[in-house]
């Protein structure tokens, strides 16, 4: 199988095949790796690559996005089927399109700093969410206009609820 792996805006061509049960041949760009991949516990894998032993904690957090913990460091890696990648390009939106601001966690809406129709700068504070005795700041990822404010002060929200929409300024 051929994939495109993306980590921190760098893309890698990745090919994977199973050479024997539990052993994989992985090519990243031009380098080949022979990987003994063993599931030790739920979502925890023991890898031996050229006799180097790694313990890796891999969760699929979202479609195609993998959260990897390795030697105390954290990596968010996107793995996309090469064919699918080509399709995706036509839909590519990114920071130029409408941003749905979702609650990253369950909590209470403590304060709204912006209302519908307000303009915001990138990184500006939109909402303060309270959970676990902490105030958590929700900021705008882009410059634009708050086209909808769904959050209401003093109400509880669950993780993933839509809090507001920010549209980029028309250019």
């Amino acid at each position, binding site marked *: 199988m051929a994939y495109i792996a993306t980590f921190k805006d760098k893309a890698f061509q990745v090919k994977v095949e199973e050479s024997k049960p539990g052993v994989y041949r992985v090519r990243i760009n031009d380098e080949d790796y022979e990987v003994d991949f063993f599931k030790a516990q739920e979502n*925890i894998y023991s890898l031996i690559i050229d006799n180097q032993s*790694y313990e890796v904690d891999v969760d*699929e957090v979202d479609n195609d996005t993998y959260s*990897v*913990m390795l030697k105390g*460091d954290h990596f968010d890696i996107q793995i996309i089927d090469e064919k699918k990648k080509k399709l995706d390009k036509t839909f590519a939106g990114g920071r130029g399109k409408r941003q749905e601001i979702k609650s990253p966690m369950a909590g209470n809406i403590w304060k709204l700093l912006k209302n519908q129709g307000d303009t915001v700068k990138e990184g500006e504070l939109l909402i303060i969410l309270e959970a676990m005795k902490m105030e958590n700041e929700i900021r705008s990822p882009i410059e634009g206009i708050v086209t909808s404010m769904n959050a209401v002060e003093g109400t509880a929200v669950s993780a993933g609820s839509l809090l507001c929409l920010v549209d980029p300024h028309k250019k």
Partner: protein
Amino acid sequence: MFKKVLIANRGEIAVRVVRACKELGITTVAVYSEVDRASLHVRVADEAYCIGPAPSNQSYLVMDKIIEVARKSKVDAIHPGYGFLSENAEFAELCAKNGIVFIGPNPQAIRIMGNKTTSRVAVAEINVPLVPGMKENLLDEKHCQEWSEKIGYPLMLKAAAGGGGKGMRKVDRPEELLDAFRATKSESIKSFNDDAIYMERYIESPRHIEIQVLGDKHGNMIHVGERECSIQRRHQKVLEEAPSPIMNEEMRKRMGEAAINAARTVNYDSAGTVEFIVSGESREFFFLEMNTRLQVEHPVTEMVTGIDLCKEMIRIAAGQKLTIKQEDVKMRGHAIECRISAEDPDNDFLPTPGKIIGLRIPGGLGIRDESGMYEGFEVPIYYDPLISKLVVWGSDREDAIARCRRALSEYIVKGIKTTIPFHARVMLNEHFIGGDFDTDFIDTKFNMEDAGRERPDEKVAIISAAIKAFRFDQQNTRMVMATKEDSGGLNPWKLSGRIRSFKNR
């Protein structure tokens, strides 16, 4: 000794106290809010009583409910842990009124030391050094102006009722003064329902170092050494150690005596902590406040002294005399505590409540796990995000850091993000390793140094994710094939939910 003790707390500290009681042969009574039925402290205690809904002001903070359970279960004493009712003089008095021993100091000690202003007045009288500043509160803007000239810049404005790093503001220049005065006052009223604030000198390269004291009801008082608590994030301690890297015997002796003197002003009769701010440059130390309870970070002192502070506190409350003499207190080696919180260090420490679906706790020599969680536990959104403390002992600071690094590499918590990776990176930071830091270090220097770190194992991470994706794709293909063959026409889309559920294999 007590026969039965109620623990008026939850999480790791309640588990800590249950363990101490069990080892003393005392029956333990847990209380829990409705969401805490699954909490570890309920499972390890001998008895358990539900005291109401999740919000702490409807359960853990309701004195009458706690007293009711205490009477019903016929306990001899109540241990308050930290937070909640632990520094509430009224609760201590209510216990006494009901014939129940409050495991903590006398109520008057809590009352005086619980307020920054009254505690400063108390200790100033016996020449414990204070940060040069006011002993009363600021009256108005004019008063503020006058004092700023006496103290000089930079200066600090502080809420009298403050704590936990809230209600403090550094002022660098005269033109910022009045804005800061108003902002601190409003923050203080918002956070503590009290707008009393005061002013003091700003200490350069400030380090937070505290002295643990033990006093009994018979007038005996000792100190059991210091803890270095300067590794803080937004004025909240995240990592503590004992001894302090900047301490020597002579300084320890002077600070220890100052702490004992401060505690004596209130006839302190329990385990308590006197906090100091120390100038990293001049090594001058100044009294900050006294915490009249067991601290989160008490384990580091236990590791180096071999004294079980929690048990001592219980023995003292039961009226026993301190058996440890000042000259018997010997520090051996070095200890570090990492506070493990349900927070995402890669995302501005956003809280991460949720279910812990996998857990591996480090082991081996010098490793102590103080955990309030377990595999399958759902971290609730209602309480503090602290879920566990990793405490490490080593023969010296270098050994302790090496061991802590090793232990963190073994520590796995699955299902929620935690601060484990943050601590792992602190253990690699050169300034931390060199002992060269102050209370601003994490918020200012560390984050920058950390962001620029190398990630030599990027390729291994990609390989792991790619193989996982590949295995899923293979399995998916096989299952769809199998479905097509076996189901005799069943619509394979119907099975998509099931296939999805295999994804996390």
